[in-house]
């Protein structure tokens, strides 16, 4: 299975069950969408980045490269959120930054920063899973721990095996087109039409192969028995429990700190009932 941005190495995080790492994304997203604040998402981002560096043994340069794509998205989200922010009645609509047609209020800028930090924190929790989990292990864990039907799990893995064959197949289709004298063509529509001309035969041969593999899987009675054995066993261990506990302690400490310091947090899933004029 294609590894993507997964980083091959051995570490505490790599040895955790994939399901444990995936599950963490859910409470993180929930907590952060409920809180509009700058410190909380910043602390969550720090938690995940430190975990990746120390427990995941991801080199800082590699981590920086993985974070790079966030930059354009973050900048776009920052200025548009600040620009379209609806000032509340209670807040002074003081213009903090005047860029001619674009006037940003102080409240708008603070809100935009908190939203960008929120997305960054969710993004880093996602990265923790992605950088330390081999995609095949994730499917194996889903089959072994979450009772994903075997035919479905192995079916997806089998289909993923076709991907490396795509480039040879594409070369074949190109050659076949040339033999039959399909014009390479010019003009504005030539490129998309050529793309579709390659995509359809590629998909067709993929679907044909999928049905052959399905017959092979059925012939070997995959998934017919209730109990089956596995070449590699994944399980939940003490370190999974320890990591989940550490996360829970961290989340509780951060949130109680927030309440104790009286930071401007609100239960605010949809941005709150902003008073509109």
């Amino acid at each position, binding site marked *: 299975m294609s590894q993507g941005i997964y980083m091959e190495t051995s570490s505490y995080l790599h040895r955790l069950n994939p399901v444990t790492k995936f599950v963490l994304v859910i409470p993180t997203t929930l907590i952060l969408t409920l809180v509009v604040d700058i410190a909380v998402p910043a602390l969550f981002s720090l938690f995940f980045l430190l975990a990746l560096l120390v427990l995941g043994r991801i080199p800082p340069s590699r981590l920086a490269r993985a974070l790079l794509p966030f930059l354009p998205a973050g900048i*776009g989200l920052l200025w548009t959120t600040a620009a379209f922010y609806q000032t509340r009645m209670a807040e002074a609509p003081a213009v903090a930054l005047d860029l001619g047609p674009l006037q940003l209020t102080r409240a708008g800028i603070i809100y935009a920063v908190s939203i960008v930090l929120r997305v960054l924190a969710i993004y880093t929790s996602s990265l923790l899973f992605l950088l330390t989990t081999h995609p095949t292990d994730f499917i194996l864990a889903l089959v072994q721990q979450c009772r994903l039907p075997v035919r479905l799990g192995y079916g997806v893995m089998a289909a993923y095996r076709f991907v490396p064959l795509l480039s040879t197949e594409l070369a074949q289709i190109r050659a076949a087109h040339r033999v039959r004298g399909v014009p390479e063509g010019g003009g504005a529509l030539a490129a998309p039409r050529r793309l579709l001309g390659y995509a359809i035969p590629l998909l067709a041969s993929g679907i044909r192969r*999928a049905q052959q593999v399905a017959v092979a899987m059925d012939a070997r009675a995959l998934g017919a028995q209730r109990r089956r054995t596995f070449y590699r066993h994944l399980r939940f261990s003490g370190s999974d429990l320890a990591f989940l506990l550490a996360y829970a302690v961290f989340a509780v400490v951060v949130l109680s700190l927030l309440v104790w310091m009286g930071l401007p947090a609100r239960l605010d899933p949809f941005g709150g009932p902003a008073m509109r004029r």
Partner: protein
Amino acid sequence: MRRLLQPWTTAEILVVATMGIAIGLIWVPWTWFYQATAAVLGPWAAHFVGGFWLIGGVITPYIVRKPGAALLGELIAALAEMPLTPWGAIVLIAGLIEGGACELFFLATGYRRFSLPWLMGAAAFGGLAFSLLYLYPIQGWGRLAIEAQVLYTLMRMAGAAILAGGGAKLIADALVPTGVLDAFPIARERRPEI
């Protein structure tokens, strides 16, 4: 009706998985296209482009026409996309919302309506659900000007209807004459009954 309640065959699973993975791979360069649009033209245009992420929830039910096809197609596509785009594990949650919404739409039609307007409707409904359940809470749209909220949501729905609904129809219909889908309802409905 009886066909709908039968368990999935292995061939159906494999074909949905293959379509899902193919779509997930198309989504990878699409992510960069989306980012570029957001940077150059702004979020309203990007939300239109982002509507294409609904295609996994439309094309597989159009081919297989069984309960679960929309959810499964979208989730497998998200799974294939996940290791290759920087968004990470969160795309599975996005896929769950988008695929789930399309699934609900097809369920409401009794898995019987698959003409172009219905495909576009399913995609637009998925785009609406994604805006309300994912983009609103995460990007905090609730405090933006009402005009921006409406514009973003409508662009997402329009992009979904045209790019995902129309794209699903275009690709799947082009696959039918190749004969590889002969075992599936999409090709069977075109053959005269003997």
